């Protein structure tokens, strides 16, 4: 099951955002998409989810254009995990996750006990079963993000597309969430996420893609793609890449500028 964007072009009011971006997501891999603010990361994700029509280019799922799939079929194969938000009404964590059963049931069939078991299963899998009865608007940001991921898992989609899942989370929650995402990839899910922290994909992810000037300028294994030169090209800042004694790359640090 491969979700692939081919040569996507898109602009907002004649300001081009994407100028021929191509990106793929396969089951079993964690892919990180890096880019500066306004680079079009979210736009590319929305186009890959079929939420926005590209001006040019094609998105395919399993070889067939997205437009050939019905929304409901699509929702059973590809799930969207948005940035953490506040719902306007006090739904419980379980109710939010239960929405993930909509694609399977349709709008007019009430969820049955199999659906409830499924939701309980994914909440337990993500370690938030104890939050089921809590109000979604009252749990922490990290717990809300996990709830949205639980909803995506309840869709039983194999591919998960996440828009900045780490944004707004504290350091501990970032690390715990990344650990979950790596485990999901190991379990056979394909996870595509955007991130602002180039240190984070140095370990744990299979592929890094850099979105520069509207197209994916480089992609591949983190060790190949994430170099100080690439970081300079991406963000315009000079960094050193720190390594452990045995040569593993662990972090970028800013180069101290000469006074």
């Amino acid at each position, binding site marked *: 099951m491969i979700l692939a964007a081919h040569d996507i072009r898109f602009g907002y009011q004649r300001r081009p955002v994407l100028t021929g971006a191509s990106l793929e997501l396969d089951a079993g891999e964690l892919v990180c998409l890096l880019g500066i603010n306004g680079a079009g990361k979210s736009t590319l994700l*929305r186009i890959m*989810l*079929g*939420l926005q029509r590209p001006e040019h280019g094609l998105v395919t799922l399993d070889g067939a254009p997205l437009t050939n799939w*019905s*929304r*409901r*079929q*699509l*929702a*059973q194969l*590809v*799930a*969207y995990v*948005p940035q953490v*938000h*506040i*719902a*306007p*009404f*006090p*739904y*419980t*964590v*379980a*109710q*939010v996750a*239960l*929405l*993930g059963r*909509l*694609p399977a049931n349709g*709008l*007019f069939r*009430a969820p049955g*006990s199999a659906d*409830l078991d499924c*939701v*309980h299963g994914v*909440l*337990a899998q993500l370690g938030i*079963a*104890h939050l*089921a*009865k809590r*109000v979604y*608007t*009252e749990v922490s940001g990290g717990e809300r993000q996990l709830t949205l991921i639980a909803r995506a898992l309840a*869709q039983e989609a194999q591919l998960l597309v996440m828009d900045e899942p780490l944004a707004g989370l504290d350091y501990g929650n970032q690390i715990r969430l990344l650990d979950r995402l790596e485990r999901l990839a190991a379990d056979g899910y394909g996870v595509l996420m955007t991130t602002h922290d180039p240190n984070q994909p140095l370990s744990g992810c299979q592929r890094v893609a850099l979105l520069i000037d509207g197209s994916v300028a480089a992609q591949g294994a983190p060790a190949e793609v994430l170099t100080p030169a690439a970081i300079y090209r991406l963000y315009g800042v000079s960094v050193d890449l720190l390594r452990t004694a045995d040569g593993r790359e662990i972090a970028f640090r800013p180069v101290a500028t000469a006074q």
Partner: protein
Amino acid sequence: MTEIASTSAPYAPSTATARMLWLVAPVLALAAALAALSFGAYPVPVWEVMHFLLAYAGLAAMEPDRYALLYNLIVEIRLPRVLAAILVGAALSVSGASYQALFRNPLVSPGLLGVLAGASAGAAIGILLDGNWFLVQAGAFLMGLAAVGIGVGIAHLFGGGSIIMLILGGILSGALFSTLLTVMKYLADPYSQLPSIVYWLMGSLGQANIDDMAWAAVPMLLGILLLCFMGRALDALAMGDDEARALGVPVKTVRLVTIATATLISALTVSIAGMIGWIGLIVPHIARLLMGPGNSRLLPAAACLGAAFLLIADSFARNFFSTELPIGIVTELLGIPVFLFVLSRVRRGWT
């Protein structure tokens, strides 16, 4: 296993207490209907109302003279009004609850897109033209629909039909029809037509006769039912357009069907009973306190509670003063303390 047992409750609304909660709203509506049939200038005890209803259905015997008296009193005088209260209360509450979910805003009422402003202007024009009751009703209904059509049209022409443009479109269209209403008031004969317009705007269930009700009742009941079936789709929409779409929900269709249905039944309530405020705003909150925010349970509960609320308000309007109060005044008077109470309870869910 113990963990499963302790956490399965929130997924399973079929626990004993949840099933009881489910009954509260319909039972309340039924009790309010019986009470409304028994209270009045000539009080009939509730048990006798029930006895009469059984006799009416052919299930019990009743003395013919008494039966004839009660038939006149209950079926001919009180029942049209009770049915009007049930339909209008249920329709306004369900529309309000649907709008709140659709616009992701708990402070929204069915008038948001201009249906009430349009209906008022339409009724005023009807009164000015010749004051014939049918013309007033038809004017209210059609201009209510027209106002929402203009609001939604503006939203689609200028903003692709996004939520914020719908609200702005509704404000513009509401302002247009409010101005039109002011013009009609200015043009109206200050001794005959102007008071009619003012009284009409206060709302009344007393105008309802069974023939008018008959043509309005079918579309209203169908509309209420249709909205009740939209619950799960509205839950998804409450999360945001993109998320609902990614969950396989046809967002534009759901939004248009919901707006069209809610507008249609709101416009029909206006043509039956004039302007009745507050119900569409507060009853959904009461229903949410009772049933939680899940719309597939909230919407039917809102319908029953709305019917009960308006029946109770109408009983006040009819019985507490020597002359009948306009129902719109009573719903506002009752609405303010109820809303204060609800506010103190629900605020924690808002942010």
